[in-house]
Structure formats: structure tokens, C-alpha cells
């Protein structure tokens, strides 16, 4: 229990000392950046929060900001739960994060260029050949292609956590189709509607400039010879879990939202069917996976792709964002080589820390992992969205045995990391009608273009809503918070 119970809504706030609390320091004092907010929130009762919470939820429902959970057979549309207590990051702390994620994105871009050209980093033995050759995301068709502006990972989503030592660690780099940015903007909107008064007391960076910067980045990588490019967003369709985000982005950027059947290829140029006839498309922001892009080049059973698209891309007549084949670098096994990758291409020390990782493909590591499962998180190398993750200290003896068997069968498929203790943040819990500690992480969004880059000054703070749960992905029942980046005083 915290000593300071002057604030009624925090009267039952249970503070565990082993965890890093974003709001209260080790002496149970409110941290500087939260002082004002804490004072403002003191004027509200838990019933007030209950009402505001209901209203905020209604806005999300009404806007249709929903998603689906794939592993659930009776899949239902759900809202991504939103929390009323924002996370605040001060200017100096943010500066490090921003520099760090940009450094990673740039290094990954150079890495991608290398693995699709000379493969120097592998020939020199810094990254093992096996990681490339056994990766299903490594596309031979991308060999030798030079994407416009030299950019592969135009859009990166970097997931960070704050450990109990108070340092940020990167958990993963998402550079296929990172999602979640629409929630960043919607969360800001919802919080402004619910508690507009608090914004007067803080000088924070806007998040709405993401859309204009994304458009600039997309236009900057237009094919050679195109003056004013036509840019579109391609979605798998309304049944995709992130369809809301696709339509939101198209709408806010001011570009067309298309499905595969709205496009066709003729003489290696891509056209969009419009009521006034075909219109040439120059840049495609795709939200469909590599292997579904073009049934003539990749999976022939893809009904959501565009036949002939890859040939048009190869000829340089259209730009695909992110480039096909970027997935090879967001493999969780590549992640563990990030410090080396940064040093190799940029000759810099990594600004952000990596979590130590054990590769089950290495004999020594495998031995350690099998003996210490209870202290580790086991992750499959190539699954996204938190599927297939086992957290060692939550497993029964029986389950540990099963996990050991699974790993032994295909060691290359698994990595393990020490159980990181994610920082906690006060979160409004509906059932308790009060604030409680919940684990949070942070997804940042980085854009790379031709002679231009941008890091969104904000991010998606995801919350694990189940008590004690460490997995924050929305598909695993997580929620989110508005994230404030303070301006320099």
C-alpha cells in the first residue's frame, strides 16, 4: 500500500516494490512529471472515472475502432480497451528513445540492402547464414532490386519496455506491417474528449502530424520519372483485424483505400479502377503480407493480391511500402544480432539496450534454456502478435515438459529471454472501480524516406489488463493508453 492515500482514487492502490512504477518513485512520492496530473485527478471520485470510462468506450464503439482475435473460434469484434490515465515521458528521456529507434531503423535498412545484394555481413560471419537461408521471409525474388530512395523499411514499429532497473530495452522491431498507429491518434482524441481540462497544464507534442509525414515519406519514394505520385493503401479487406486502421489511415492521409481487385497490371504498370477509367498508381502502402501480394509470383491461392504486381515493382514502375522481403530482418532471431548490426553498418554504439537472448539453435544456449525454462520467456522466432509465447514461471511442471519437447524438436524455431519485469502504470480497472498497477510497454513509430526521416513524438502504450499478465498485445487481451511526450521547457 502506498503511504500517500490523500487521493481517494488511489486509496486501494497496491504498490509492489519489486516493480518499476511509472508514477510513484521508490519513496512512494509522485514523480515530477505526474505531479500536476495527479493533483488534477484528485478532484475526481472513482465514480467520476467510471462514468468517463464508459463515455470513452462508447466513442471507440461508435467510431468502429474494433479488432478481432484470431485464436478465438467465436471471434467477435472487440474494442481495444482504452485507459484514462495517460503515460507521460519527459523530453530528455524521449530524446534517447527517438535517437535510439531511428538508429535501429537505419541500421535495419542497411542490413536489408546488404542481404539482398552482396550479403557482406553474412560472408564476414557476423550474422549466421542459417538465419537468412532458413527464414521463410527471405525472398530470392528481391535479390538485386534497388527500391526507390534505397529504402526497404519505410515504416517501423519498435517495441520498448522499461525494466525494473529504470532503463528502456527494445523487445522487438516490427518492420513488416506494424499496426497500432491509428490507436495513438484515436487515444489522444478520446482523452481530449473525456478530460480536455488536463491538457491546459501540460505542453505536449501533437500526434496528428503523423499523417502528413507519412504522406511525405510515401511520396518521397515515388518511382523514377513520376512527378506527382498517386498513392494508395491496399488492405486485405473488411475481415482483417486491422481494417479499421487501414481505412483510418487512408482517410486521414487523404489517399484511396483499395483492395486487390481494385487494381490491375498492364504492361508492367499498376492501375486503379475508377469511375472515370483506369488511373495509374505509383506508390502502394500495403497492409497485406508478402506472400499474398501477387498470386503470379508468390502464393497462387492469394485472392487478395494483384496479379503481375511484383513484375511491375521489379521494373521500378511502382513502389511497394514496406518493400517485400523486409520480414527477414524482423525475425526474432535477427533481433539478437541488432547490437552487431548497428556497429557494423553505422559504426556506432547502440543507443537502446537489447534484451539478452538465448538461441536454441546454439548448443550451449539450448542446454541452458532446457534447464532454466522457469526463469525464461520462450518465443517462437517467426510468429507475430504474441502467439505461441510461453512464460516460464507461469508454467506447471507438466507444461514445462511439453515446452521442452517442443523446443527439442525444432530448436531453430525458438529463442528465450530472461523474464523482463515490465514497468507498471496506474490503470483504471472497471471491475474494481479503482486504479491498480498494470504492466505496460511502448510501441514507437519510425518513418524512413528518401532524404527524410520522422519519429512520431508519441506512441502506443499497451497495457496488460489481466492482473500480473506480461503480454500486452491487443490480440491477447491488452488495452492502451494515451502517451504524452513533454516539450522541452
Amino acid at each position, binding site marked *: 500500500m502506498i503511504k500517500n492515500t490523500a487521493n481517494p482514487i488511489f486509496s486501494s492502490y497496491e504498490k509492489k516494490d519489486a516493480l518499476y512504477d511509472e508514477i510513484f518513485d521508490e519513496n512512494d512520492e509522485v514523480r515530477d512529471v505526474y505531479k500536476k496530473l495527479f493533483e488534477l485527478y484528485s478532484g475526481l471520485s472513482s465514480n467520476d472515472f467510471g462514468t468517463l470510462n464508459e463515455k470513452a468506450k462508447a466513442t471507440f464503439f461508435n467510431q468502429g475502432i474494433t479488432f478481432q482475435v484470431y485464436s478465438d473460434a467465436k471471434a467477435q469484434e472487440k474494442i481495444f480497451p482504452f485507459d484514462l490515465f495517460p503515460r507521460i515521458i519527459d523530453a530528455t528521456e524521449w530524446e534517447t528513445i527517438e535517437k535510439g529507434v531511428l538508429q535501429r531503423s537505419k541500421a535495419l535498412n542497411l542490413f536489408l540492402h546488404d542481404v539482398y545484394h552482396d550479403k557482406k555481413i553474412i560472408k564476414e560471419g557476423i550474422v549466421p547464414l542459417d538465419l537468412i537461408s532458413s527464414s521463410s521471409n527471405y525472398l530470392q*525474388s528481391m535479390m538485386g532490386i534497388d527500391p526507390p530512395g534505397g529504402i526497404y523499411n519505410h515504416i517501423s514499429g519498435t517495441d520498448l519496455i522499461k525494466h525494473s532497473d529504470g532503463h528502456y530495452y527494445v523487445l522487438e522491431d516490427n518492420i513488416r506491417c506494424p499496426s497500432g498507429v491509428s490507436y495513438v491518434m484515436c487515444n489522444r482524441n478520446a482523452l481530449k474528449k473525456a478530460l480536455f481540462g488536463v491538457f491546459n497544464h501540460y505542453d505536449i507534442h501533437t500526434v496528428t502530424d503523423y499523417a502528413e509525414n507519412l504522406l511525405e515519406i510515401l511520396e518521397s519514394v515515388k518511382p523514377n520519372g513520376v512527378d506527382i505520385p498517386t498513392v494508395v493503401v491496399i488492405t486485405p479487406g473488411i475481415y482483417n483485424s486491422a481494417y479499421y486502421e487501414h481505412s483510418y489511415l487512408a482517410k486521414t492521409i487523404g489517399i484511396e483505400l483499395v483492395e486487390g481487385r481494385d487494381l490491375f497490371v498492364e*504492361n508492367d504498370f499498376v492501375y486503379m479502377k475508377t469511375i472515370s477509367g483506369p488511373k495509374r498508381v505509383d506508390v502502394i502502402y500495403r497492409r497485406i503480407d508478402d506472400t499474398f501480394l501477387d498470386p503470379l509470383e508468390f502464393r497462387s491461392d492469394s485472392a487478395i493480391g494483384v496479379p503481375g504486381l511484383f513484375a511491375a515493382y521489379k521494373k521500378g514502375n511502382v513502389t511497394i511500402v514496406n518493400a517485400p522481403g523486409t520480414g527477414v530482418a524482423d525475425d526474432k532471431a535477427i533481433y539478437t544480432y541488432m547490437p552487431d548490426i548497428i556497429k557494423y553498418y553505422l559504426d556506432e554504439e547502440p543507443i537502446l539496450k537489447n534484451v539478452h537472448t538465448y538461441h536454441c539453435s546454439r548448443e550451449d544456449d539450448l542446454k541452458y534454456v532446457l534447464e532454466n525454462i522457469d526463469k525464461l520467456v520462450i518465443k517462437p522466432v517467426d510468429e507475430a502478435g504474441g502467439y505461441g509465447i510461453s512464460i516460464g514461471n507461469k508454467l506447471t511442471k507438466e507444461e514445462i515438459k511439453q515446452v521442452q519437447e517442443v523446443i527439442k524438436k525444432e530448436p531453430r524455431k525458438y529463442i528465450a529471454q530472461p523474464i523482463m519485469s515490465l514497468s507498471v502504470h496506474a490503470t483504471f480497472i472497471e471491475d474494481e472501480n479503482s486504479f491498480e498497477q498494470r504492466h505496460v510497454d511502448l510501441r514507437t513509430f519510425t518513418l524512413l524516406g528518401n532524404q527524410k526521416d520522422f519519429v512520431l513524438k508519441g506512441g502506443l502504450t499497451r497495457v496488460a489488463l489481466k492482473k500480473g499478465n506480461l503480454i500486452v498485445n491487443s490480440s491477447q487481451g491488452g488495452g492502451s493508453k494515451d502517451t504524452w511526450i513533454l516539450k522541452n521547457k
Partner: protein
Amino acid sequence: MKYDYTIKYRSENHYETPVFEAYWQFLVTPENNSTQKLITEKFTTSVNARIEESVNGLGFTTSRIHCKKPFKDIVFEAEFKLTKREVNPFDFTLPLDNSLDYELLSSLPFRVEFEAYLKNTALTILPKISEDLFKFEQSKSVFENCIALNTFIHNFITFKTGVTNTNTTLPTILENKEGVCQDYTHLMCAVARVNQVPARYVSGYLHQGDGFLGDMQMHAWTELYIPEIGWVGFDSTNNLVANHNHIKVAHGKDYNDCPPLKGIVYSSGNNFTKYTVEVNHQQ
């Protein structure tokens, strides 16, 4: 000596119910390389659709048809004229010291460079128990071992049509020891790769003598990368080193990288496909 060839490729498709939209992508055009040169090409279809030339992901020429009007039958015909130079597969000197070549094959930069043609695919993965099916003898040159492997594969499989298809994997072939050219080629690729020799699946035409008409199919053989020589074609179906009768279209990791036809057809009901190939040699 030069050889002039005319190649005719014809494919017929019949659909039970009308097709409203369809894409066909043919990978049947002979490539230009140091031993063969394409002179003319001619395409016709029965549906009056435009034929577009393009390239696939591995850089080979494709011909694509996009039909926008409903139809039930479609015929596609292609005719190529090309010249082929005499190839003497034995036109090189064998290295004096074989060990250097084997050192090269196992060196990291080499394995990285040829990564795509050294890794297993679903169609070329050998079951664990068969990994020692054919071991290279380090006392002999890489080339000599490849020749021996070619003969080994030729004798291992009995040519028989209708028992396998393009999805047949190696365990079935190893068990039944029967198949056609793509099965010989998949096994050859797999065994070469476990012996650290880069191997690629080649799709092309085989000239089998003049006036040979009828139900001829496209052919498949293997190219192996031999240090200091480069890619050499091995036709294990016929126990030959590829020569002027082998007209190459494309290569890849396995059959899936170079099927002659890929079709995306929006239709229901059954369909029936037939294709023929004719290769003629002009004096």
C-alpha cells in the same frame, strides 16, 4: 557448329462453366545465354486477348494474358526460332589439386553467395536416412563426382509416366524409384546440395530427333556449379551432360520456381488442360 531450332508450344484449356476473368502467365520463352540466341517469337491466342511480355522474380521472360471477356475455351500458342551453338561440355582442364575446390565449396563466402541453390526446398529435401545416398569422393574432382552422380541418379530411378506429379516429394520417389524428368532433377538437386554443390532446377526443351511429334512435354534437368568451370547442365533422365539439344528456358530452386504455366482463374466447375511441345531442327 550452329543449330537452328523451331519450337512450338501449344496449350489448350477447356472450362465447364464460363470464366469471367483470368490471368495466365507462361514461362516458355527460351532464355538468351552464351550458347543459345532467340531469333523470333510469335504468340497467338484464341480469345483475342493482348499478350504482354514481362519478367518474373528470378528475371526470366514471361508472357502474360489477361482475359476480361467470358470464355470457356482458350488456346495459347507460341513459336520460337533460335540458334544454338555446339557445346563441348568437356572443354576445360581439370584442376591439379582437388582439395582446393572442396575447400572453396565449404568456405563461408561461397556458401553465402550460392545460398539460394544450396538450401532445401519442400520438393528437394532428403529424408534424414537418405542423406548419405551418394557421397562425393574427395580424391576425385568435383566434376568427376558430378558425372558419377548423374549416372547414379539415372540408374536409381526408372522412367515411368503417370506415377508422380509436380508435387511429389523425395520420400515417395526414393521409395518407388519411379518417375519422370522433374523427379530425376529434384533428386539430383537434393543430393548435390547435401554434398555442398550448388544445384539449380532447369526447365526447358529437349530436341529428340526430327519429325518427333505428338504428346511431348517440356523437359527438366539440373545445373551444378563446379568451381573454376561454372554452371554445367546435367540431364540425369538421359544420363547426359547437357548439350546442343538442351534448350534452356529458366532455372530456380525447384519446379515451383519455373512451372511453364501459372494461371489465376475466376471460375467454378471442372477444367481440362492439355499441352504439347514440338522441337524441330533445321539443316
